[in-house]
Each structure stands twice: as structure tokens, then as C-alpha cells.
């Protein structure tokens, strides 16, 4: 602990109270003048490091979450998560690793048209969101992941995406450009068999 336990206690109470991650800048507003919120968050994190509940970073936000290693003992009956389709998982991964990315580029990576509900479902879940438009003709919308995505998958930042470094080193995260003809599907015609 430090010479200023009261700031630490306040920070602890604020974050602990909330189910949602709290923004670092807004936490700072609550601390007394001159307190460094980053330093205090570091102290708080250390305090909870080996505990049943950990302080975790979610983008620029902070939250307490149960320790991952306790999962087997915490899991309760039910919790039947909605099973994502293969297409949805693939699309989510492509958005996460290539963001910001347009719909057409996602289709290019997968080599197949995105069926209508896929992006919609990921958007509705709150894992992806529109991130602005690409400055090319047509100004297509680009998509990226949200803080909710980071929180859900237990990532402090996008840099923590598993395997991102190797993929980048292998050039597999380079900007997406059209390759073989079928992989640039015309929008409109559905190409499903039958």
C-alpha cells in the first residue's frame, strides 16, 4: 500500500461496484487533485494479482473480473451460449485482426459473399461497430471491434489478440487487395448452390 490508501480505496470501490468497465479518464475525475490515476491503478492491480478476482484492463477502461483459472469451479449449470456459425467466427476474426475493414474486403479474405445476417449479428451482439468510411470511391463503411469485444474475450487491448504478431510478421495482415476473380463477388447475385 502507499501513503494514500484513501485514493486506492475509492478507486477500488468505484470499479468493484460496477459490472461494466469504467473509463480511466472518468475515474481520474473522481480522485483528489494531483493523484495519478495510472499509478494508483497499477497499485490496485498488483493488490489483486493473485486473487480470486482480478483487475483487468479493457481498452482504456478497467473492471474487476473473476480469475480465469477458477472457471471450472465457477461454471454453473445452464449458460448455453449462442453458438456462432463458422462464417460468423471467421468474420469476427477477420474484423478483429484486419480492422478497420470494409465488407468487400471481408468477402475478399473469405473468398465468398457474406450472407446477410452475419455482420448484422456481430453488430447486434455489440462486438463490432462501424468505424468510419474508407476514402475510396463509394466511401464504403469500415468495421472494427468494440470495447465490449475486448471485455468479452478478456483482452486488454487489440495488441493482445492471440497470434497477431506472427500473422503480421508473415504478412498475412497486409492490406487486402483482390486476387482471384471469384473472390471479388459481385454484390447482388447470391451464389449459393441450388
Amino acid at each position: 500500500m502507499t501513503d494514500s490508501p484513501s485514493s486506492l480505496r475509492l478507486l477500488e470501490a468505484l470499479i468493484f461496484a460496477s459490472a461494466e468497465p469504467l473509463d480511466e479518464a472518468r475515474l481520474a475525475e473522481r480522485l483528489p487533485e494531483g493523484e495519478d490515476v495510472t499509478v494508483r491503478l497499477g497499485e490496485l492491480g498488483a493488490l489483486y494479482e493473485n486473487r480470486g478476482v482480478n483487475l483487468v484492463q479493457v481498452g482504456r477502461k478497467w473492471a474487476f473480473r473473476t480469475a480465469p483459472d477458477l472457471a471450472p469451479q465457477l461454471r454453473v449449470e445452464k449458460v448455453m451460449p449462442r453458438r456462432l456459425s463458422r462464417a460468423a467466427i471467421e468474420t469476427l476474426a477477420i474484423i478483429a485482426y484486419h480492422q478497420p475493414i470494409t465488407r468487400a474486403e471481408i468477402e475478399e479474405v473469405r473468398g465468398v459473399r457474406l450472407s446477410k445476417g452475419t455482420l448484422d449479428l456481430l453488430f447486434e451482439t455489440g462486438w463490432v461497430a462501424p468505424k468510419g468510411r474508407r476514402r475510396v470511391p463509394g466511401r464504403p463503411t469500415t468495421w472494427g471491434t468494440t470495447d465490449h469485444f475486448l471485455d468479452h474475450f478478456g483482452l486488454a487491448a487489440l495488441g493482445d489478440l492471440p497470434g497477431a504478431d506472427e500473422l503480421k510478421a508473415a504478412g498475412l495482415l497486409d492490406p487486402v487487395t483482390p486476387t482471384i476473380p471469384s473472390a471479388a463477388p459481385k454484390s447482388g447475385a447470391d451464389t449459393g448452390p441450388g
Partner: protein
Amino acid sequence: MSEPSPPVSPGFEADAGPVRAPAPAQLILNLDGYEGPLDLLLNLARQQKVDLAHISILALAEQFLAFIESAKRVDMDIAADYLVTAAWLAYLKSRLLLPATPGEDEPSADEMAAALAHQLRRLDGMREAGARLMARPMLGQERFVRGQPEPTPVQRTNVYELSLYDLLKTYAGHEAQRQVSRMRVAPSEFHSLEEAYHRLTRLLGEMPDWSLLMRFLPEGLSPGVGQRSAVAATFAASLELARLGKLRLRQLEPFGPIYVRAGEAP
């Protein structure tokens, strides 16, 4: 969604890949299990039993073409994008086999092959990344939030709750309704034989293989008279085009769906 059936490619070792590979006698040539040509290519590439970085694109092209050929032999309905890819791979194969002509404008065969290999590795990388994401301890399943949250002054205290998703969905719904009502005031809902004839003629290039005739109806028809007249006009036009040899028609059973494909005549 079902897992793809283990692909079997005649003329190529079929014992790699999933354990449940079927005996050669019962070839499974089902394209439904694949999410497009690239997915099929990736599955075939896996059978080469080498690192994806060292696959032979020439061998892969041959595998793919053989697969499509045997699918054709069993008279399977092959979606257009597989055929486009097959044509491209046939072209690539011929160029890979010929000596390179220097000073050409278009990319060399090796560059094209490298681009395809890159695309396969990228898709493979993304699949793997997706699997690793899904293996992470997820909120509500392996990691849990505070079960009895208390109010804090830090949270944004919005009186009104609305997500971007709901805002956009509402707008989209509104737009869709506007489009529908715009359609209803169209001066006439009848479709003439002449229009349908010109329409189908324009679309001939889009039907290299058997496709449902119903797919080539005009978009955005309102149910009822408009739709019925469009179906009648399109069918009559297809008969006329078939008579001229520009189009072929097929119906497998009485009242069954009608299929069309481009005919031999120019």
C-alpha cells in the same frame, strides 16, 4: 451449420485430412459443405501434407479442376463462382506450364500463384485466429462480472437508452417501408413479354450453369398480380429464347422448379 464433408479428390491421395474420410467407393462430392471456392481450395491444399507455405499451386489447380470435373460427371449443380475459379485455375495452370514470356504487362504466372498461396495462408490464419479467440475464457462462461453491481457516479448516466444498432435498425426499417410504399404506387404492375425477353437476354451471361428460373425475376416485386405477371412473362420469354437456342430449360418433375442455363447459340 454442419462441418464440411471430408473432400475427396479423385486422382489424388485422399487419405489426409479428417479421420472419417469415406472409402473411395462412396465419393462424396458435396459442395454444400464448403463456403465457396477458396474454402474448397484450402481443404484440398491440406491434403498435400506439407506446410501451407510450401504447397504446389500447380498440383492444387489440378486437384481443384479434377474435383469440379467429377462433380460435373455426376451432373451436380455447381454454383457459378466455382466455375469462375475453375476457369481461372485452368488458365493459371496453362501459364505455369508454359515458359514465361518476359516483358508482359500482366502479372507473371509465378506472381499469380504466389498471390493465391498468400490468400490461402491468410484464410487459414484467420480460421486459426477465430479458433483461438473462441478458446479464450469468455465473459459469462469462464469469467464473471460483479453479480450485484452498485450504482457509481463514474458511469455515464444516460437517461435515455439507445444503441447505435437500434438507431440504425429503426432507420433501415423506415427506409424499407418507404421503398415498399414507393413501389405500390408504380403505374403498372404488369410485366410484358417483351421486357422479360430483353431482361433474360441481358442476363444470359449470368447463367453458365443450371440455375433456377425464378432467380431471374425482376427485383422488388410486390406479391400478387405483379409477381404472377412477372413469372408468366419470364417463363414465356424463356420458352422463346429456348426456341432460338439461346437458352436451355429443364424441369425434373411435373410442377417442379424450372432450371435454365445459357444455350449454345450466340
